[in-house]
């Protein structure tokens, strides 16, 4: 398992990628602080701080873009000029690709947890279920990574894949109705509920906070099932592309 020896270095590389840190940590911190200031102590119908729900959705939303990190590292290591050197190394290339995916997912989870910590310690949001929220951040990150890789393996140009992942991220935020209300019809309702990873993870966390454990597990399991269904497709396309 020579690939294991690369994991600390991949994580170190990601943690030193200042552009990613700015986009997935710096920008959310600024936005969270701004929204906290604007919303003040306004209360929601649920009796919680209105900002609590906003912070939760915002932290979840940024997980949708975590796949871009995985995609970019995988691309630069296995599909650019580095490819030739990596391919001569005595390890399994598919496992190396998988290790990058895992590192990206863990890295994204850590950034999400840092945002949660900031929201709680600095902005006064009290997270009822840290572990459950983290679990859902992880699921969202896994699904986003898989979707991003499927997009990358499916198209010729990396630039196109980047644009598609942006559409995926922004698209599901829009479909979740976070920017403006969506039309009320069956398709839109599905894409704004069980067909939307962001709504699923957000719904799972909210349901658990409201004491509806059954509904919370249902939503989280749909997300987990989505990743299980998409994973073989990603594997198939990835193996074909790496050949």
């Amino acid at each position, binding site marked *: 398992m020579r690939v294991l020896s690369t994991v600390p270095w991949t994580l170190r590389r990601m943690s030193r990628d200042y552009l990613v840190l700015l986009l997935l940590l710096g920008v959310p911190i600024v936005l969270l602080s701004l929204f906290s200031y604007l919303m003040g102590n306004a209360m929601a119908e649920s009796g919680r701080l209105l900002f609590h729900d906003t912070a939760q959705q915002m932290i979840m939303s940024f997980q949708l873009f975590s796949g871009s990190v995985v995609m970019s590292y995988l691309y630069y290591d296995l599909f650019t000029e580095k490819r*030739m050197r990596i*391919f001569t190394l*005595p390890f399994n290339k598919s496992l190396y690709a998988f290790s990058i995916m895992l590192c990206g997912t863990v890295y994204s989870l850590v950034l999400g947890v840092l945002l949660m910590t900031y929201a709680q310690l600095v902005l006064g949001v009290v997270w009822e279920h840290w572990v459950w929220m983290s679990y859902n951040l992880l699921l969202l990150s896994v699904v986003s990574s898989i979707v991003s890789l499927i997009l990358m393996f499916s198209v010729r140009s990396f630039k196109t894949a980047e644009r598609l992942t942006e559409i995926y991220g922004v698209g599901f935020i829009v479909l979740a109705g976070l920017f403006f209300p969506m039309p009320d019809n069956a398709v839109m309702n599905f894409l704004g509920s069980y067909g939307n990873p962001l709504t699923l993870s957000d719904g799972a966390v909210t349901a658990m906070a409201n004491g509806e454990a059954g509904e919370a597990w249902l939503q989280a399991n749909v997300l987990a099932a989505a990743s299980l269904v998409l994973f073989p497709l990603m594997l198939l396309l990835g193996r074909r592309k790496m050949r």
Partner: protein
Amino acid sequence: MTIASLQGVVKRYGTQLVLDGVDLDLHEGEILGLLGPNGAGKTTLIQTLTGMTPVDRGTINLFGDDRHPFSHANREKLGLVTQEITVFDELTARENVLFFAGVYGIKGEEKKRRAAEALAFVGLEDRADKRPAKFSGGMKRRLNIACALTHRPRLLIMDEPTVGIDPQSRNHILEAVTRLRDRGTTILYTTHYMEEVQAIASRVVIMDQGQIIQEGTVDELVRTIQHEEKVSIDVTDASLVDRGRLEQIAGIKQVTVHGNKLTVISAAGAGNLDRIITIIKEQTGLVGIQADKPNLEDVFLTLTGKQLRDKEEGS
């Protein structure tokens, strides 16, 4: 002893024949210089020898194994210095070397020791904890080499390792290559710089259009064209010289122009120098004239009809 060999290797990309029945042996402890114009098939040859590109026909034998030449065990004995700089910008020089050492299964204190040794070998020990993003081109290339050395490969493949660097770094790299050879490493060295091959290679292979067209030591190759004479003539304005008239002189094989320098290759003993000078004086001013001994570049030019650095000079 043969450490690696290709026999009858054929590789096509679509309808394009890139390697056309290549036979090549690499002997233990030698530096084999691989020369060829752009598109000759050098990089494809390296890709097949490292297992990155499967061949359409022929066999590859690596370290005596032609059934599974690219097994992990064989890959552990192989080092590759790529033409492009393939280090991680987010890691320091030491961390880059440690990354590759780990992949080759080197652990603990030995890994740190080997990393320090590799960095010292390429003269980067004082930059070990700096990131390559701030390195000069030459330093990046040296780090690129260090990454391929930590596991002490038996066979090191270097694909144009000195492209675009300063003379000081080039000398450093060439010295390092020679020291590696002295330690017993076999090296396959491709380059566009003929003088590098002439300085370090024990044997030279010239490729063109997917085929090996000549091989031997530098002296052996030069002897193959000693039936020719080369004269370099500096003129005041080469554009005024009618090359056609020169080429019509008996015994002349080739006339090339670089700036205001004309290079004329004639059959040995043609005795046509007076006639050449007369024609040139009729058309432009004669600045100087020099008779050269044939070198590797002349061999290359004679065999392929191409300048090795055509593309680079044009860009």
